[in-house]
Structures are given as structure tokens and as C-alpha cells.
């Protein structure tokens, strides 16, 4: 990155309100963690709704969750876990100045996220075919228990908002691939990769909780 004059003292990415690159990186990461806590609280609102209804109607929730295919949910869990691995590896390679592997791992992460969304697409359309729609449109003959619609409303909203987060992550990581190809990242500055990686891990963690609560129990 050096051009011959005072490069370590003032690298081009260092903004003027920070003293060192290190401080700037730490501030960026801390800001990201603060944002991630708001994301966790966002999903916790929905987890609380799930818990309230589950405590009120445990047998309905148990019966309704059997209508969700745990093999698809389990497969999606493995897909997202693998995508967390590849995004962590992408950061590792950014830190090692290995641009090729950085890009490769980011691309694989996006592809895995795409696989997740495709599976969710098939899950949703299968539900619609059986008349299972969110909220007032619930029209299933497979499960006509009182409060079954509540389970599926919560299912659609939670996986839907999670799905939106996956799509946002796919867009962000595609943008990172674009930037990486243009040589924007190096071991001295890879902050957007780091921050997007952190975001992606939270998306994975939300699913780690969603999967057992919706599909398994």
C-alpha cells in the first residue's frame, strides 16, 4: 500500500478523527456489535411471542411443528453453519493478503445463502399448497386445531424476517466480492469484510435457535 511517503504513519484508509488504524478498526467493530445487539433484540421480540403462545397452547405447537419438515430445516442449518465457516475463512484470507481465497470464500458464502433461500422457497410454496398461510388466511385442512394459525403466523414472520436478513447478507457479500476483485481490501484494511462477517454470524445464530424451536420440538 505504500507510496513512499509516511505510509505507516497515515495510511490512506485512516480517517482524521482516529489516531491509529487500530483504534479505527476497534471503533468500527464496537459499533457493529452495538448494532448486532439491536438485531438480537429485534428477533427476541418474535421469540417472546413464540414463547407466550407456546406456553399457552403447548399441544397445538407440538402438533403444528410436525407439519414442518425437520430434514429440510436440518439441511438448512448445516448450510448456514457452513456459510459461517466460509465467511470466517474469507476474513482469515483477507488478513493473510490472499485475495483469491478471500473472493472464493465470499462467493461460496453467497452461494450457500442462496441454497438456503431456495430451500425456504420450496418450504413456503409447499405450505401454501396445503392452505397454510399466515394470519387470517390460514385455510389448512390438515390441522384445524384452535391456535394452529398462530403457530404458522409466527413461523412465517420469523423465518420471513430472517430470510430478509439472509437476502441483505447476500447483497452485502456480493458487494464485498465486487470490491475485493478491485483490490480494495488488504491485511491493513479489510474492515467491511470483518463487519459483514459479524452480521452474517448473527443471522446464522438466529437460525440456530429458530430451527429447534420451530421444527424439532
Amino acid at each position, binding site marked *: 500500500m505504500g507510496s513512499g511517503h509516511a505510509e505507516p504513519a497515515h*495510511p490512506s484508509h485512516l480517517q482524521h478523527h482516529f489516531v491509529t488504524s487500530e483504534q479505527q478498526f476497534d471503533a468500527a467493530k464496537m459499533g457493529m*456489535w452495538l448494532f448486532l445487539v439491536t438485531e438480537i433484540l429485534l428477533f427476541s421480540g418474535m421469540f417472546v411471542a413464540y414463547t407466550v403462545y407456546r406456553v399457552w397452547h403447548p399441544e397445538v405447537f407440538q402438533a403444528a411443528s410436525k407439519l414442518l419438515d425437520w430434514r429440510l430445516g436440518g439441511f438448512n442449518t448445516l448450510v448456514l453453519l457452513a456459510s459461517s465457516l466460509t465467511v*470466517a*475463512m474469507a476474513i482469515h484470507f483477507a488478513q493473510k*493478503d490472499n485475495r483469491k481465497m478471500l473472493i472464493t470464500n465470499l462467493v461460496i458464502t453467497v452461494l450457500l445463502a442462496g441454497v438456503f433461500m431456495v430451500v425456504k422457497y420450496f418450504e413456503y410454496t409447499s405450505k401454501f399448497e396445503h392452505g397454510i398461510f399466515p394470519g387470517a388466511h390460514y385455510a389448512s385442512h390438515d390441522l384445524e386445531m384452535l391456535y394452529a394459525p398462530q403457530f404458522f403466523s409466527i413461523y412465517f414472520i420469523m423465518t420471513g424476517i430472517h430470510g430478509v436478513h439472509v437476502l441483505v447478507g447476500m447483497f452485502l457479500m456480493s458487494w464485498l466480492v465486487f470490491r475485493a476483485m478491485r483490490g480494495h481490501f488488504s491485511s491493513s484494511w479489510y474492515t467491511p469484510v470483518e463487519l459483514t462477517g459479524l452480521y452474517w454470524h448473527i443471522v446464522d445464530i438466529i437460525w440456530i435457535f429458530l430451527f429447534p424451536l420451530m421444527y424439532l420440538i
Partner: protein
Amino acid sequence: MAHAHAANHGHHIIPLKLLLSVFGGLVFLTIFTVLTAEFVDLGPFNIVLAIVIAIMKAGLVVTFFMGLKWDNRVNALIFAVGCIFVIVFLTFTIFDTAFRGDIGNVGKQTIEEERRALEGVDEAAPPAAH
């Protein structure tokens, strides 16, 4: 952590082997949670076990993949405080919703009126049960 060049001032690099080991652990826990949920009946403990395993998986992701183990302590504090607030949120909501109706009389009559009505019917009748 080389000092010879400007790059990577002390950023901890997580070794690939560790990342792969953590991934292996996560896959194992996923398989374990599916097997215990689908094929083992522990009654109400199925839910507890599933949540405990999920917390372990999330812990692995946060500690290793997200690097909190080697990061500035303030980030771990921020995350921990966030989790505490989630628990507060959940606990106090359940304190309300899970115990509704336990204070039984929510009818239109006052307690006095209801007592007098019951005594009118049968002097020896026990108080209304919920």
C-alpha cells in the same frame, strides 16, 4: 504479529484448523439435537435440551467464528448485556402471560356481591373455587 510492515497491527488471525474444528463441533451438535428431538422422548426436557444445545452452538459461533475470545473485552460485554436484556424481556413477559387467570375473579360483580349471591343460594356453600 510482524512489526516489519504496516499491515495487521496485532489483529488476531484465527487458524484455519480451529475454524474447521469449530465447524465440526457445530455439525455434531446439530446432528445431536436432531437425533434427541426426533428419536428420544424426554418429555418436557426435550425442549430444555434443545435450547441448551442451541446455546452451546451459538456460544461456539460467538466465541470462535466471531472472535470474541480474542477481541477487546468491551464487545463481549456489549453482547452479554444484550443477552441479559433478552432474558429480562422473556422472563417478565412470561411472569405476566403464564399466570393470567390465577387471580380468578374478573367478573362484573364485586367480590361482596358475589359472596352475597352465593350465600343467598346456600349458607353453607364453600367460597367459589377457580
